[in-house]
């Protein structure tokens, strides 16, 4: 694989990761969010596999498989189960309307480019073109967490953010050692499970997953 094509493919994959994150801002139902997240994870898996093929690195293949199992299969399934359990009241009414969200996503992308520019300028890796995009998907994930009401969509936002970090790690270091990657997976999994429990608790306590209701705890 020539460097040019490799660069193009990696940048394309990074763009798709970002676009999948942005798709959440456009979609309006939790299942669609979960699906977009699964798709985003899938694009990262593809990126890791392409990298593995280029570097002829077995560990990376393992990482990709783990990632696939966890983020494309398990987490979406678990999220779907939670969603079905929590039911239709997990209405996704964002604080910010769709066009404005999309505009903010555009601005966040520009900011990501501005922030990442020094790093990109220093780097000589052929994957550097994707770094600002990965950073942008971290931002978009944060924005989802900040702008959505339902605890469940906040989890999705968190996972999108985490995906962005994972992609950044892949692009910037050509894959961290397997053991570190495993640790990260475990962290994410743990965080995910804890949040899942929280969603159930919030749901039990307030009969909704609208995090806004937590305000009533202030007294």
């Amino acid at each position, binding site marked *: 694989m020539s460097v040019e094509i490799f660069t193009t493919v990696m940048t394309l994959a990074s763009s798709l990761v970002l676009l999948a994150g942005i798709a959440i801002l456009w979609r309006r139902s939790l299942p669609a969010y979960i699906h977009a997240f699964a798709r985003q994870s899938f694009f990262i898996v593809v990126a890791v596999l392409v990298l593995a093929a280029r570097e002829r690195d077995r560990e990376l293949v393992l990482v990709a498989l783990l990632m696939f199992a966890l983020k494309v299969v398990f987490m979406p399934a678990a999220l779907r189960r939670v969603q079905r359990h929590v039911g239709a009241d997990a209405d996704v009414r964002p604080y910010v309307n769709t066009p*404005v969200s999309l505009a903010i996503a555009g601005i966040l992308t520009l900011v990501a480019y*501005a922030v990442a*520019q020094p790093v990109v300028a220093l780097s000589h890796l052929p994957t550097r073109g994707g770094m600002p995009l990965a950073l942008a998907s971290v931002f978009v994930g944060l924005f989802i967490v900040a702008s959505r009401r339902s605890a469940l969509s906040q989890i999705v936002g968190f996972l999108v953010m985490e995906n962005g970090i994972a992609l950044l790690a892949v692009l910037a270091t050509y894959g961290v050692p397997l053991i570190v990657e495993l640790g990260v997976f475990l962290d994410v999994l743990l965080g995910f499970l804890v949040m899942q429990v929280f969603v159930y608790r919030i749901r039990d306590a307030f009969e909704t997953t609208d995090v806004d209701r937590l305000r009533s705890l202030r007294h």
Partner: protein
Amino acid sequence: MFLLLMLAAYAAGAVTALALPPARGRRPAAACLALGALAGAVAGARVVITGQPVGWELPSSLPGLALLLELDPLGGFFLCLIGLVVLPAAIYAPDYLASPAAPDAAGGAHAADGGRVAGALTALFILSMSLVVAAGNVFTFLLCWEGMAVCSLLLVVGDGATEERRGAGRWYAGMAHAGFLLIAACLLLLAARTSGGAFADIRGASYGLGTGARNAMFLMALFGFGSKAGLVPLQGWLPRAHPAAPSHVSALMSGAMLKLGLYGFLRVVFDLLGGGPPWWGGLALALGIISALYGVLYALLERDLKRLLAYSSIENLGLIFMGAGLGLVFHGAGRGDLAALALLASLFHAFNHAAFKGLLFMGAGSVVRATGTRDLEAMGGLIKRMPWTAACTLVGAMAIAALPPLNGFASEWLLFQSLMAGVGVAGPLFAVAMAMSVGALALTGGLAAACFVKAFGITFLALPRGRAAAEAAESPRLMRLAMLIPAAACVLLGILAPSFGRFTAAALAAVPWLDPSSASFRLDAGFEVRDGFGRIAPAVLALLLLGSAAAAWGAVRLLASRRRRVGETWGCGRIGQTSRMEYTAAAFAEPLLRVFGDLLRPTRDLTIEFHPESKYFVRSIGYRTRVRAWLEEDLAGAIRRLLRPLGGSGRLIQSGSVHLYIAYVFAALLAFLLLARWM
């Protein structure tokens, strides 16, 4: 010499209007003005083409107070522009003013003096505008600038009979004088370093100024001239003053006077200050973009025909200042060749706007004259009763919506190209900023098209929505002729855009650091920008369109069935069609009002009257939506609150005694003399 002929003709126009009784004096006065306009245009064109400035001086014993006229190519260009507006406006005025039905014709036949003073003021207004662009020193410039402002102010206020006119007068007076203060401060600071305040001297001296002083002068010039051009946030007077003035005066103000804001900006910032750092241009560009979007959004929602046109003027001046700001950015980045391109776009659009906005205001005036109202919701169907006005207005509407092959398109295309040229100039983030500007420009264009479909469609098409509209009559012959002139100009400037572009480029030669020979555009049969980055040939496009249409027409004529039957408008079989079934202006704009609801903050008011016996039957439903121009009003409110205490203390010295006033003058004189002695 044409310049002097122009001055003489305008002066004669003023005298004629004042001396003869209006019924007999209007036409001779108009003839004088038209002659003056032609002479001015010829004088300006000659200066632009030959590149030789012409000058004339009335010496004075006091230093700095000499009247100095010096017409360089830039001024000449604007003199042509003024001529293009004045000529039709002069032809338009007599019949328009003679009509008793024109309610906005302050100084019309029903005014107390029969409109003598108004006629003379119009002539003086035109004269002072023409002198502004010919002014060769600070004193002349400021004198004419103020003369222009005062004359137009008086024309806007008219007899001050309605609250609308008085309100417009207050807004306009406030803005114009705030602007004048800034301009005067800026120019006087510039002149302070020279002996006579002649522009030629300032040019050489301004390079020695400190950065802080230059920045301050730039800001004063931007906001001072910006207030005349109606840039946001100084746009508030435009939608008030334009509707209140008689329509030919609106045409003059919007078509010509606003452009002098651009002229002043170019003269001071480009010529006298010699350009500056890129952020100057960036600021002007940003203000331009905001003004363009602001203007077009409010124009879209407006239901008052002339206010709509006024908001659209804000939009177009925004586009013009986008070009000027971009030129400044390019100059700051050391790209004189691209700066020439951006300025070409700016000047070209200024000229085009003079043509179509003058035309549209005159069209609006004809409509107002015929129907007695400016409310779009009371119009409709006028195309059948006023075919000439409708056809001319349609040309104007298409030109302002930048549809090819008319003139608006040529200049917007240049603006697009100059924005795209910004990509390689100053780093990637700037390139993205340029991309966003391109997006904003395109949005403006699209919204302008929607706006003028609404303006033209609701005014002229479908069934009349009111009795006045149903009984409207076509304007007299002279008014029609007056509208044909700018309509022809819109078409010709569009098709012959490259030739006119050459003319415009010649006017740029007045800016010393612009070297037209290195400019990044070529104009032969078409436009060519940056070595083939963009190419169009408007004449070929026009031929292509005409050819396609003719081919389609011929083929249909030959091959298709020719049967044609006239019937009713299809309305699902309802018994009769009335104008209440038509789409209204408000309804037309509703989807966009919704889309931009967060920005425009409309208030909606729904009243349903139920049948007294059952709430399942409805007697009437009223839906009223109001969009407050909150930016203007809140800003004005804040300023008013700020100024009220100041005004209160100002009243202290305001006693009404003439003697005291003379004493003030005397005291001021003494203070200045002492200041001059001890400084």
